[in-house]
């Protein structure tokens, strides 16, 4: 049923954007976390995480059939393929009194930039809303199809 596929595609968009919001929330919550993990007996601050998105195929069979016939298949929406850690260096501040300060008195803090996170959050929210709109359109089309022959 193709119309249900439309709903499923929008649902993948909703799921992916919800995950993006979750990851952004985690980043903001950990913006000041100095002790995220213990590496070689030393505390490493929290690294900012990002979601990597990629396209999802409707079904492997449909994709191979279409490509064998030289045609383009309608896709199956989006999926989160990976959650990556931002490898930008940690900002350092001079604070010798801090318990996590190194021998020279510098403290490494997490590389989360709250402004960037807010921008990502807005982007995820807008994409989520767009997927809701597409889903409602599919739904009302389906309701209309049920009226045929009444």
């Amino acid at each position, binding site marked *: 049923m*193709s*119309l249900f*596929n*439309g709903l499923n*595609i*929008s649902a*993948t*968009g909703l799921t*992916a*954007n919800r995950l*993006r919001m979750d990851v952004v929330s985690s980043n903001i919550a950990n913006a000041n976390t100095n002790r995220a993990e213990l590496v070689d007996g030393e505390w490493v601050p929290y690294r900012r995480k990002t979601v*990597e*998105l*990629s*396209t999802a195929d409707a079904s492997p069979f449909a994709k191979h059939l*279409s490509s064998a*016939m*030289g*045609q*383009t*298949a*309608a*896709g*199956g*929406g*989006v999926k989160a393929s990976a959650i990556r850690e931002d490898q930008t260096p940690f900002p350092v501040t001079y604070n010798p009194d801090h318990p996590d300060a190194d021998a020279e008195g510098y403290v490494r803090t997490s590389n989360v930039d709250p402004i960037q996170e807010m921008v990502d959050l807005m*982007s*995820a929210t807008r*994409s989520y809303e*767009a*997927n809701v*709109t*597409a*889903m409602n*359109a*599919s739904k*009302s*089309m389906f309701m*209309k*199809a049920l*009226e*045929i*022959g*009444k």
Partner: protein
Amino acid sequence: MNLFPSSIQKMEQALSTSTLKQRVHADNIANVDTANYKSKQVNFQQVMEQASASRMQSYRTNAQHMEFQSGRGASPVTVNHNTTMTPNGNNVDMDFEMAELAKNQLWYNAVTERINGKFSSLSSVINGGR
């Protein structure tokens, strides 16, 4: 005399094409933040032409002769590789997608109304105009 006129089949084809269009635009909207995603489009006219062309039959004098194949035509779904909207290589134009979604929905409703009209006139004939 055919009870169901061929226009009903045409409209059925129009509805299923409209459904495909809905899927493709939903896919574009879902992938609005996917890096290097290129937007897809459905060529409505092409799908309708292919649907009517596929009714052409080959003249076969032997059972082993092949039928005409309508499968290997141009793809109804095309990918737009030429533009870029964002630095990550994505070219989904959200305003365009939303407009197409609304247009497609109205179109679907219009065709559904027309099918209903056809059926109700048929049933009026069956009931002897009552």
